[in-house]
């Protein structure tokens, strides 16, 4: 089956349900696109290095050029994550971070002053959300001002409850596509997303790499061809140069491990330096 045979996906923008104006990550991606650049999406696990420190670090990162916040819900068995993020999540869990603290952090980030505020997506493995209750989680995430949820180990096939709950509360839902995704799966995943689609640059886990997978550009094109309206690329991006490379073709560049490492090694000042470098990368990406 060629991608052109596939049904046109209503990718991302299911316009029937409300999306809180100004708080969606899709609008941040669109704003970046209107400015002729890719958006910078940054990840930290909630509660790392501690609860207040995480919120302060993300506010400072927004001021330094981050367009979208990806707030990790620390989990005991993060199979998609490499050692840097896993260690940070373990620190957060040892520090007593609970789901309700993550939601509190969302609320604090969503109500930060102008210039330090950006849409917040929670990234969570499925076990914590399921245990909290899918409907309850959607309700509480929406009322905290969260934009939506990224689910690294929940594929649309298993996501019936979440699709219903996110529609009801106007939340974005970001599913992943991978270099191994078939054309049919690219199409069905793009159709199930609300907001944007996460393209995993390589077959692998999170972690800074010396080069971003060459599969990424083709995957973005294929996802678009399969109906994805917005596609961001993650896994492996750590430098301004890589951000520029990926920003040339993706709607957003997702950075995780490099931010975690900068924050643990050099504190908020170090983190701001890395974010500025990455932001300059995406800004210069399209010449």
């Amino acid at each position: 089956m060629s991608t052109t045979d596939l049904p046109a996906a209503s990718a991302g923008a299911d316009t029937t349900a409300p999306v809180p104006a100004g708080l969606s990550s899709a609008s941040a991606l669109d704003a970046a696109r209107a400015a002729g650049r890719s958006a910078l999406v940054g990840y930290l696990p909630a509660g790392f290095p501690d609860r207040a420190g995480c919120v302060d670090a993300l506010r400072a990162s927004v001021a330094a050029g981050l367009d979208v916040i990806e707030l990790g819900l620390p989990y005991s068995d993060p199979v998609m994550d490499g050692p840097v993020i896993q260690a940070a999540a373990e620190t957060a869990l040892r520090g007593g971070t609970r789901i309700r603290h993550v939601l509190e952090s969302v609320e604090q980030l969503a109500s930060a002053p102008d210039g330090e505020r950006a849409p917040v997506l929670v990234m969570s493995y499925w076990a914590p959300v399921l245990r909290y209750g899918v409907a309850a989680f959607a309700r509480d995430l929406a009322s905290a001002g969260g934009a939506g949820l990224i689910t690294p180990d929940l594929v649309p096939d298993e996501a019936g409850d979440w699709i219903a709950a996110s529609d009801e509360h106007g939340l974005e839902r970001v599913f992943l596509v991978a270099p191994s995704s078939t054309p049919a799966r690219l199409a069905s995943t793009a159709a199930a997303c609300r907001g944007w689609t996460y393209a995993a640059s390589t077959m692998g886990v999170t972690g800074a790499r010396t080069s971003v997978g060459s599969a990424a550009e083709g995957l973005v094109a294929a996802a678009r061809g399969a109906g994805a309206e917005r596609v961001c690329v993650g896994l492996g991006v750590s430098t301004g140069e890589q951000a520029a490379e990926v920003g040339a073709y993706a709607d957003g560049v997702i950075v995780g491990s490099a931010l975690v490492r900068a924050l643990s090694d050099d504190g908020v000042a170090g983190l701001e330096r890395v974010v500025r470098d990455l932001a300059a990368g995406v800004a210069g990406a399209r010449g």
Partner: protein
Amino acid sequence: MLFERVGDRGPYFGEFGGRFVPEALIAALDELDEEYSRAAADPAFAAELDRLQREYTGRPSILTEVPRFAEHAGGARVLLKREDLNHTGSHKINNVLGQALLTVRMGKKRVIAETGAGQHGVATATAAALMGLECTVYMGEVDTRRQALNVARMRLLGAEVVPVSTGTATLKDALNEAFRDWVAHVDDTHYVLGTVAGPHPFPAMVRDFHRTIGVEARAQVLERVGRLPDLVAACVGGGSNAIGIFHAFLDDPQVQLLGLEAAGDGVETGRHAASITGGVSGVLHGARSMILQDEDGQTLDSHSISAGLDYPGVGPEHAHLASIGRARYEPVTDDEAMEAFRLLCRTEGIIPAIESAHALAGALRAGRELGPEGVVLVNLSGRGDKDVDTAARYFGLVSDADLVASEAERVSGPVEQTEANGW
């Protein structure tokens, strides 16, 4: 025929099962499912597996009646299905040979595995050596210490053993590492999952490879006793040996199925590995099942004297059998298991794996309920060679001085895996 694919094959068993994995793995799971379907329909596959099981593993495994042991089980007749006599020392080889043949069929060159007690790792390393595959085994660092003998066996067989120090450094973290490796190397690597857990098709496929245990045992008991057993007992970690023996009896309503979970210090203490007795419905390692979880969905640490049962989840089909009441699952503490272990050694001259000793403890209990007319079939899933050290410490059979000396030797001299020493 030894190998037969079963109709009821997931992805869901009632509300349990499914595929909660990164998208990157879906293509590999589909490929495996398709190749497995083709293999199951191919008489040549069944014939090759049958040959290996007879000529390499030593199947059919025998049935041993243990009357002196049974005196402690209310006089009920107790019959052991001797999976401990399989090559490599446990039931694990049944599944591994099947998956190794599939690996070859898929044209993959490398296998990875996770292991707790080391039996699954040893079985995988063995099959890899036999079929010329590269092999990497992930093992929690804690387990590499308590099962040092099996680490050495795997290395002798040519496998790379990678100690995992993340998380709790036990079996569940070894699974996490194996999944990570698989995501990155899925093109040339097959993940030989060691139990009936994980995403579809693993729970159904691994079960099918182990069904031979129950199929053989059912016929053997009928022949020996002239009727079906009243109860079938098996230990449950992930649940592969238990589902293997249970499955042949599912349609015999008069046969009770009893799974014995590791209760560690006691379920009430919170230091246990009894996922059905003390867990909740949740997601772990790619499937929805019964899991030891806190109210935030974080996996709780499990505890058991037995590394092979020290896992905070259980296969989804067991969760289903428990929920519909077809099988019953009961906890057995470390002390009860070790008492049954001692008893089998002393009364019958058989040193069981500590995992299997949990099933023996369950059989003692069940036999006392059934009385002298009862017939209990126990899956003796493995032999105790690997557990001699643990048992000797538990029973105080070696002096403290000896323990210190052997510990010192171990710490000072881990054998490096180099070309120079020939391994």
